[in-house]
C-alpha cells in the first residue's frame, strides 16, 4: 500500500510558530504556511515515526453526483497524537485536516 500524504494544522505554543516550523522542517515535514498555525504535510510514515500516530484509509466522494470524484485520505486512529519531547515546548496541538465535499 502506497504511503499517503497527510496534511495538518499545527497549533504552536505562544510565540513559538517560527521555531515549531523550523523544528518540523528539520524532521522532514513540508512547511506550507506559518501564521497563528503552521500548515504542514508529510507522508504517513513520518507522522508515525515522529508523532506515533497511524492512519486508517477513508474514501470520500468529493462531488456527490460524480462517482469518479472519490479520493482516498488518511484519518488518525488515535484521538490525539503523541507530541515528542523535542517538540513539547513548541507545539500545543496537532490538528489533522480532511478534504471537503464540493456542494
Amino acid at each position: 500500500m502506497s504511503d499517503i500524504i497527510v496534511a495538518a494544522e499545527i497549533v504552536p505554543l505562544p510565540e513559538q510558530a517560527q521555531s515549531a516550523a523550523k523544528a518540523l522542517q528539520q524532521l522532514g515535514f513540508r512547511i506550507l504556511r506559518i501564521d497563528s498555525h503552521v500548515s504542514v504535510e508529510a507522508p504517513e510514515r513520518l507522522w508515525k515515526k515522529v508523532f506515533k500516530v497511524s492512519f486508517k484509509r477513508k474514501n470520500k466522494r468529493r462531488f456527490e453526483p460524480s462517482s469518479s470524484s472519490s479520493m482516498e485520505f488518511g484519518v488518525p486512529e488515535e484521538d490525539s497524537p503523541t507530541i515528542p519531547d523535542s517538540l513539547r515546548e513548541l507545539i500545543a496541538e496537532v490538528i489533522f485536516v480532511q478534504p471537503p465535499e464540493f456542494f
Partner: protein
Amino acid sequence: MPSKKRSSKRGSAEKPAPKQSHSQADAPEITIKQNQVAFEAVLKSADPRHSMFDVNSALKAENLERYRPKEELGVRAARALQDLGFTVRHIGTFSISVEGAKHLWEKTFGAELEDHTQRISERHPDAGEVTYCFPKSDTAINIPDHLKDLIERILAQKPPIYLGISPLPPRVGYHHLRVPSDIATVLRAELVHREGVTGKGILVAMPDTGFYKHPFYAWHGYNYTATLAPDATKVEKDDIGHGTAEAANIFANAPNIDFVGVKMGANPTLAFKAAADLYPAVMSNSWGFDIREATLPDWLKPLEAAVVEAVRVRGITVCFSAGNGQWGFPGQMPEVISVGGVYAYENLTSREDDFDLTASDYASSFESKIYPGRRVPDFCGLVGLTPRGRYIMLPVEPGDAIDRDMAIDKDAATGSDQSDETKPDDGWAVISGTSAACPQIAGVCALIKQVQPGLPPDLVKAVLRASARDVSKGKSAMGEPAGEGFDGATGSGLVDAYKAYKLARSVTPQNLSALPAPR
C-alpha cells in the same frame, strides 16, 4: 481563442495540406513539412546526480531546481546543434526546441525515422490529417560524443491532437439554464449590467478543485486567472471539473470582475487562507463539511478562525454553499453569506411578474446546532431538483470526472437515466447544487461592491436579504417548506440583483456589528 495556431507554418508543396474545418469549432492549421522532424534536446542537469528521467523522479515545482542546467549550457548546445545543420526554434531552461531534415537526424543520431499519420481532431474528422516523422519504436537514439556533456536526451515530438472544445455548449432536450445569459436574466443581473455596473475593478477569489482554461472563458473575454494553494499542483488541471464549472456562475452575474481561482490541495484551510491573503472584495466557496453536531470538531477550528478573520478583520464578503442535503460548514457560520437553492421553471407565473419559483429539494436548509439562532440559508441562487440537480450547462475540463459521470451515469436509486445528454469528453456538463448558487450570489455581491466599495459584509448580506424575491412553494432537501415571507427552506428567497443594486446605491455604509443592539 479556441486553439493556438503554429507560428511557423511549415507548408509543403510535396503533399496536399490537410483540409481545414471552420464549422463548429475551428481546428488549428497544422502543416508539417515532409521529411522534417521536430525534437526537444533536453539539457544535462548541473548536478550529475539528478536526471528528470530517473524512474523515481516526479517533476514538481519544489524539485525542479535539481534539474537546472549550468548557465550558458543551453546556448552552447544550441550552437552545436546549429553547427550540425539543425534549426533552433527556442532555447528554454531545461530543453531546446529544434527542427531538422530527416536525413540529418538519422545521420546525427543514428535512429531511423518513419512517417506517422494522425487525425488533427478526433472530434472533427473533416479537419483532416497530419503526417509527421517519428523514430521507429525499437531504435536507439545515440547522442554524438561531442554533445554528450551538453545534452541528456533527444526526444522527437508529435503534433498535438486538437480536442475541439467549443466555447458554445451543446443542445440538450430538457429545461436547463445556460451561462451567462439565463443566469443573469433570472437573477436580474442583466438589468444591472445595463446600468453600467458589471463588477469592474472587483476582485473575487474562489478556492476550488482547479481551473481549466476552457475556451468559454476566453471567448467571453473574462478575466479568469488562477493560482495554487501551497499544497496544490498543476493549476489548470481540474480532474473533477468543479472549479472550472462553478466559476462560470460568477461571471454570469459579474462579467467584468477580476477573478482568481485558488486550486485546493489536501488542506482546505490553507486554500481558504491563500485566497484571503489576496484581500479580495468577495470570496466564493462551493465546498464544506457536513457538521450536524452541537460542537464544532477541533479539526475544523483553524478553518473557523480563518473565516472569522477574513470577514471581521479583513472585511471580505465571504459566501459559502449551504449544502445539498448536508449541514454545510462553514456555510452555517453566522459571519458568512449562506446560499441555498431555488428552482426557476421555464414559464412565468400567471401574473407574469416573475418566473415560477419553487424551493429546490436538492438544497439544504437547517438551523445550526453550533451557532444558536443561525438559520441556513440566508437566501438563494438557482439550483436544480432531485435526484441529481441537473440544471445548469457549465464548462468543465474535457473528460474529467463530472464530464464523464454526468454524461453516462444512471441514478442508482431509481434506475432512471440521468445522463445530461452531453458527451463524456466534450467539456460541458449539466449540473448544479448550492455549489452553483454560491458563485451566482458572489457575483451579485461583486456588483454591490462596485456600487458601494465600502459596504461591510454584514451590510452586503442585509441588502441582499432585504431585496430578495419571496418564494412560497416547494420544500428543501430537509423537507422544510417554503412559505410567505422569510422561511426555513429558502431564507429570504431568490436573490434579485437589480433590486439589491438599487438598494445598495442608497445605503449609508456602517458596520452593523458596531451598531448598538436593537431595543
